[in-house]
């Protein structure tokens, strides 16, 4: 008997209603439906689209500034990562790297924090959280879908900056030999592969940061508050990281290894900073995901 039939039967005596058989719970196959709905929500918001536009505009500005300023080596500093801008005229790939470098301290964390801070607090704020949970959605499943959404948004943000940078860079400067930080020259294909590694590393770092955002998002019903708090944490971490007297705690700061991605542009790749960077990200991510789960799993939903 289908549920509709069960419901349409008018019982002669209401007490006969009691144990009408409803169809058994459908087999719990894996479905990406909820995740897809979550992604539609994230990518459909004008606020997020505007944020992505800002992320994408930075490499475009860099590319045109270098192309038409006439003095590519004038600004941006000499060696290290700042030198990416100077290298842009040799190979368009460096526009992407330069854009990632300048967006890493604030814009990229901000983009991740907006989505992560909104994840649970946003639903609580408009009241939809109670309806999702009553649907029912298991709390662990809700967090998992929310974090997957944050993760995919993080990947999108990093790739967006890189792809727009590389696209405009190649269009304006073409592809030449890529000079790595260690001085070796490699082909554009190898250079692209290295850039992809950089993106992967940054996604790992920012995913850990997104886990912090998700945790803070379970603490409040104010999504903006969660976003500000977690961006504030990132900035504080970078400030502490710049105070040399505090060097003892530097390795434990969540943002400490972010800029180490330059090591992926050496030949051979130096793992001295990359491996601890990945370990740091995984540990931070695990701690904050566990905290979010512990907090959200038992929380009273009064919003």
């Amino acid at each position, binding site marked *: 008997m289908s549920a509709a039939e069960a419901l349409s*039967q008018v019982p002669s005596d209401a007490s006969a209603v*009691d*144990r009408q058989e409803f169809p058994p*719970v*459908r087999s719990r196959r894996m479905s990406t439906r909820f995740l897809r709905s979550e992604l539609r*929500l994230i990518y459909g918001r004008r606020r997020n689209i505007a944020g992505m536009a800002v992320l994408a505009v930075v490499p475009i500005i860099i590319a045109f500034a270098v192309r038409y300023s006439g003095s590519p080596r004038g600004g941006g500093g000499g060696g290290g990562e700042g030198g990416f801008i100077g290298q842009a005229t040799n190979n368009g790939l460096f526009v992407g790297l330069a854009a990632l470098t300048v967006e890493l301290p604030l814009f990229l964390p901000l983009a991740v924090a907006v989505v992560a801070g909104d994840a649970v607090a946003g639903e609580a704020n408009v009241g939809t959280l109670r309806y999702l949970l*009553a649907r*029912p959605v298991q709390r662990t499943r809700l967090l998992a879908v929310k974090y997957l959404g944050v993760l995919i948004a993080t990947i999108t943000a990093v790739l967006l900056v890189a792809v727009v940078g590389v696209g405009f860079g190649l269009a304006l400067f073409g592809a030449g030999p890529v000079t790595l930080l260690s001085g070796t020259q490699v082909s554009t294909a190898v250079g692209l592969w290295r850039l992809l590694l950089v993106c992967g590393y940054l996604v790992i770092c920012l995913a850990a940061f997104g886990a912090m955002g998700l945790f803070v998002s379970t603490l409040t019903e104010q999504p903006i508050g969660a976003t500000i708090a977690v961006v504030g944490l990132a900035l504080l971490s970078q400030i502490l990281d710049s105070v040399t007297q505090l060097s003892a705690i530097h390795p434990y700061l969540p943002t400490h290894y972010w800029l180490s991605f330059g090591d992926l542009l050496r030949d051979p790749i130096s793992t001295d900073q990359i491996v601890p960077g990945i370990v740091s990200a995984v540990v931070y991510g695990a701690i904050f995901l566990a905290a979010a789960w512990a907090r959200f799993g038992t929380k*009273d939903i*009064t919003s």
Partner: protein
Amino acid sequence: MTSPVGTSVTPSDPAPPVAGTLPAAGPAVLPLQSTAMSGISGDGFAVTSDGLTKRFRGGQVAVDHIALAVPHGAVYGFLGPNGSGKTTTIRMLLGLVRPTAGTNTLLGGRIPEDSQRVLPRVGALVEGPAFHPYLSGRDNLRRLDAADRMADPANCAERIAGALERVGLSAAAGKRFRNYSLGMRQRLGIAAALLQPRQLLILDEPTNGLDPQGTREVRSLVTDLAAGGVTVLLSTHLLSEVEQICTHVGVMHVGKLVAQSRLSDLRSQTAQRIRVHTTRPELAAASLTRLGLHDVIAEGAQTSGQSSGEVTALLGSADPEWVIAALVHDEVPVLAFGPVPVNLEDVFVTLTGEGFGVSG
């Protein structure tokens, strides 16, 4: 819907309820203690709770040892002033808020342990509708449906269209929720609860914000659903709503369930008053008092030399025919005689000791 529900509220004790803990002058309704319902398994009841208590941080007890028992097929009016703990109770029933003490079941399953099994058969409207403001009504329903593992994506569009149709929102389905009026929001909330076939509906103030026409529509919708066998727990602060559509009623007051009974029992156990319309109220009052009726109240009106008024009194065990005979015998000019309609409001004021304002 007025057809009685065949299940007694007290399965362990089918004897007529006796007044005990209630104010002496109050109507005889079920006295409730937290132990009264212990021993109920979820069977036979769509909703039960036992000693359900919520104490918020800060020590405020929002819900105090309540023992709900909602029989299958009932339309249960969960009545109480704003702030009496109804919404916190509903949140506990659905597993949104963890009780400080006590347990509850929905459709025979314990909450929160069996939530994933029973909640798909429960539709809920909790403390007003809530949707994403920048999505259309239809997209909001799609979002909720996507989150539901039991929902079949193949017939999602038809189910959404059906639910919107049922609440009269088809025309506005494509509008952003932000631009919905309060009444449209309420309708969308009900549509969300009806996306799937349900066995139990928990509706918190479903007519809030609706115009009289919308209120009528929602009431008739609830009545239809109940006629189809759906159990409805309807929280409200409106007595008229309970009187019009409920078969059972539970009354909350400052966190306690002060009464729970069939509506018809509540009415019949309420002490019957009679009313005499007469041109000589003082004569009638004297006559009724002589008869030994209690609580005789005379309300006279002097208008342009003509006096007429009304006298009411508790009928008690007296026979109304005998009262009329006595009045006539005492030469009281009786213009009209009849029972005073049972006023639920009086019942609840007696139960809660106050009107339907806001509980402290």
